[in-house]
């Protein structure tokens, strides 16, 4: 059962990584178009910058879940080294509870934020995009974090960079 739950979390993470990669690529392409236009015509292509900016909150929020799932988040683990295995397990469950609370808070208050995001982004004179599209990234991030809770305590175990070098 635990393996199956872990698998769900892994699949979601893979999908999120693919989306994140696509967002980085799209942002880079849009920026390149903008820079080339600026250098060739000496005037700014405003829509390319505005559109790039719309991808940023999504990339940021999705990448947060990827960093978390990969154990790349930064934590102070010095004190943990001196705890007994039982106590380490207890702190891991406590940490997992905090992650869960954070995820639920992101969903709940993220939906409120989404509801209240009524303003429009001016991409160009003719194209306006609702702020709701970017605000939605907050509850979605919370939802993905909830799915990653299925990984159990491995979610709050930190990556040891020196072990990675082996």
């Amino acid at each position, binding site marked *: 059962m635990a393996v199956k739950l872990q698998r769900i979390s892994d699949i979601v993470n893979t999908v999120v990584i693919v989306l994140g990669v696509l967002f980085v690529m799209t942002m880079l392409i849009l920026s390149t178009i903008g820079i080339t236009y600026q250098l060739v015509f000496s005037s700014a292509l405003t829509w390319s910058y505005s559109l790039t*900016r719309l991808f940023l909150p999504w990339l940021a929020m999705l990448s947060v879940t990827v960093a978390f799932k990969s154990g790349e988040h930064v934590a102070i683990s010095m004190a943990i080294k001196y705890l007994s295995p039982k106590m380490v397990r207890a702190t891991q469950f406590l940490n997992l509870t905090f992650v869960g609370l954070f995820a639920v808070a992101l969903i709940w208050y993220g939906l409120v934020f989404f509801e209240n995001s009524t303003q429009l982004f001016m991409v160009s004179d003719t194209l306006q995009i609702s702020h709701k599209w970017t605000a939605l990234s907050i509850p979605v991030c919370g939802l993905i974090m909830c799915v990653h809770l299925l990984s159990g305590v491995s979610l709050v175990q930190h990556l040891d960079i020196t072990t990675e070098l082996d």
Partner: protein
Amino acid sequence: MGIIPVVVFLVLAAIGLPIALVMIAAGLSGAISVGGIGFIEIIADRFYSGVAGFLLIAVPYFIFTAELMNRAKLTDRLVAFANSLFGKAPGALSHVNVIVSILFAGLTGAAVTDTVAIGKTLIPAMKREGYHADYAAAVTACSSIIGPIIPPSIIMVVYAATLRNLSLIDLFVAGLVPGLMMGGALLVVSGWISWRRDYASHTDIKFKHILSTGVRAFPALMIPVIILGGIVSGITTVTEAAGLGAIYALMVGVFGYRTLKLQDIVDSLVSTVKFSGVVFFLLGASTILGWYVVRSGIARSSAEFISMVSTVPIIQMFVVNALLIIIGMFIDVLPAIVIAAPALAPAMIQLGFDPLHFAVVMLLALNLGNITPPVGMTLMVGSKIAGVTYESAFRQSIPFIVGHLVVLVIASVFPQLILWLPNLVKNVF
């Protein structure tokens, strides 16, 4: 600042909760203590605001550039070029290590990344030439921390994004002189130790060799020129320059050096997403904690406390430096910036210090934490590559740490050293 957020911060940090979540919990407990449970709703709005700033588009671009350059096996070309410069000087490879770190600083701007890239090539080579392995680890780690000071630098983007009232362009330019001073100080230490231990020298310096290796390294060395040149001349904004740097790095790796394969590019993109997440998580969290810090009057209290310790500006600066070095010893540079900057920077500005001067001094002081126990991530990585204990690598690092401290003291005492270049650039452009 109320006692509750401080207790929440310390307890949760001690049990190993990710530092971003610790900051969020401390910030929210502070917000609740100010305005009741209803204030918890700031979590969504503040977190969003912390990650959505236009300037932050540069973060994934800089990370992508660094990832591409690391995977393009650039180190060998830079080492060959730096190697051609030292000839019969004792400890040539040790000096090469420092020079390559300075060159790498303009490409990646991340200390641990630089240590891995340079260490994996140079540490085995140094061991073959008879250097002590722990010394090889020390010089690699201690020179890699030049990376975050010489632009482009991710920690500078984070600092500017955290405080929002400081020009990132000024910060980039201001980092150049202290970064080169760090390199100079390390070369002095490296020269002294190599002379005393009679470390190996190479053949005579040949101009033709410098030229041929220089030509091979040239395309990569253009990356910082494109990024900084574009920004400083006003041709591009910071985000545009970051994007341009990434595209150029891709072109150089694929068509110039032909060392980047499709898999390398995909891996670079995946790593970019992962590491961007680390940065954005901290930035979002810092905005929540920062919201409370601003309202709690901690900056004012900090200023009052520093004034209480001494009214002499230079002593105030040294007190803050000592505090920052201690913070850096226990917390990684990125989270240390987002925790300490909102409280200390306004306090120091209130006391009359220049915001840009203090920003660079703060980054220099916190950056030292990369090579000091108990956290010292860069030194840990260096000792792991060299196959020596962390303790022995640290012992060999002490003269280099002294070198870094001298630079920190000089940068603290003489603000003009940091400020003249940004001022000059402002006047010229």
